[in-house]
């Protein structure tokens, strides 16, 4: 943030000097980030073959969040960028989480009231239009 004013004092960004605006991320850091992202991809694929039950999806999502943070902070320069840009990103993510949370609460709420299985007559339609489709009975065996 403060770096902007100091950069603009430098004047011209010719040659190997600093650019007029923005922040330069050194190549070594870019390569290290790329390597870390590839390594995390390998980790997340490997975890798939280990069964930890319910936690599998949370581990996979956790690794994805770490990878996303690396991309956002380093590749997208957000670590050195204005706070307001970070706020924009975090705000949008919060609103997506809000949408998912409320939608899931609604789904939970109505779940017990839903009649199970395919309604009457669906079996005939499915047999005609989708011959191999499995049909869910309305009266499942207890």
């Amino acid at each position: 943030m403060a770096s902007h004013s100091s950069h603009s004092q430098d004047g011209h960004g010719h040659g190997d000097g600093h650019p007029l605006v923005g922040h330069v991320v050194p190549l070594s850091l870019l390569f290290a980030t790329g390597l870390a992202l590839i390594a995390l991809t390998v980790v997340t694929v490997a975890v798939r073959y280990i069964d930890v039950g319910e936690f599998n999806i949370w581990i996979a999502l956790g690794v994805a969040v770490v990878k996303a943070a690396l991309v956002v902070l380093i590749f997208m320069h957000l670590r050195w960028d204005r706070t307001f840009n970070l706020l924009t990103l975090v705000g949008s993510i919060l609103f997506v989480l809000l949408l998912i949370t409320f939608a899931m609460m609604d789904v939970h709420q109505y779940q017990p009231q839903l009649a199970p299985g395919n309604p009457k007559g669906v079996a005939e339609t499915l047999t005609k239009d989708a011959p191999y489709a499995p049909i869910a009975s309305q009266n499942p065996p207890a």
Partner: protein
Amino acid sequence: MSAIPTPTHDAHGHDAHGHGEHGHGDHGKYPFLRHHFDTPAQQFDSAKLGMWVFLATEILFFGALFAMYAILRFKHPEVFEYASHYLDTIMGGINTCVLILSSLTMAMAVYFAQRSKKGPLVFCLFLTLLGAVGFLVIKYFEYTHKFHENLVWGASFYKPVDEEERVIVTTPHQAPATLAEQSTAPDLSPGAASAALVKLPAADASVVKKAALGPGGLAPASGSPEQEAEVKAEEATEKALPHLLDPKMPVNTHQFFAIYYCMTGLHGIHVVIGMGMILWLMWGAMRGRYDGNYYTPVDLGGLYWHIVDLIWIFLFPLFYLIH
């Protein structure tokens, strides 16, 4: 118009805001600086904020699909567990690496633009473009393979490939062949919960049992048209696609492929748009439009490309890595 004495812009640049080192002088020094900005830094920050707001709308755009994914997965976990095995993890993993590498070359392109190095800038943009092409080529092979196997959305998922086979399968005697198998199979391991719901009207099932043929050698010589129809139906069943005959297939499996094509397809469209953008950046870079003073388009294009990568980082585990 005549009531307004002077256009506000003129007064703005010269006198009213002529503070210190920035003033009207900047506009002469930097030909890229638009008249409504005071300094290059102000112009750069405004452009970047605009891009971030756009990226926020992109996240909301995909967010709706992620919400749909969450609801479907909550309601039909067995469908996701089962259908995920039809996706090729190796191909998905390679595609993830291709996108990460192209993100890296894009970040390097921004670096070289900042350092006013035209050659490496063009080369890095070219590598990024190559990554995008590679991603789409792998995706193309994945999609065509699935289309070939009828792994698609909607009712087509349950249809045999050719029409003749369809007619045989849908004749009253044969229609529930696979369904009967399901109703008789006692336990179906992964999707047992929903598969237990699968039941047939008793009358249909009994008809099917009668239709089953004995071993080849003992099969009755072709005589009555009924028997011939049975043989034909048997052949059709053998020709049918594996997933259609799989007794473990849970109800509503096609929904997985609907959301899969929705999300990866929308992502693929973004990759195509990104390719156009990279081509445009390459064209500008070759004409020497960008240097350490002015590289805003490269920077913002990079942000867009990284968001495309970011979305894939989440799509990959959500579709390919379901245990």
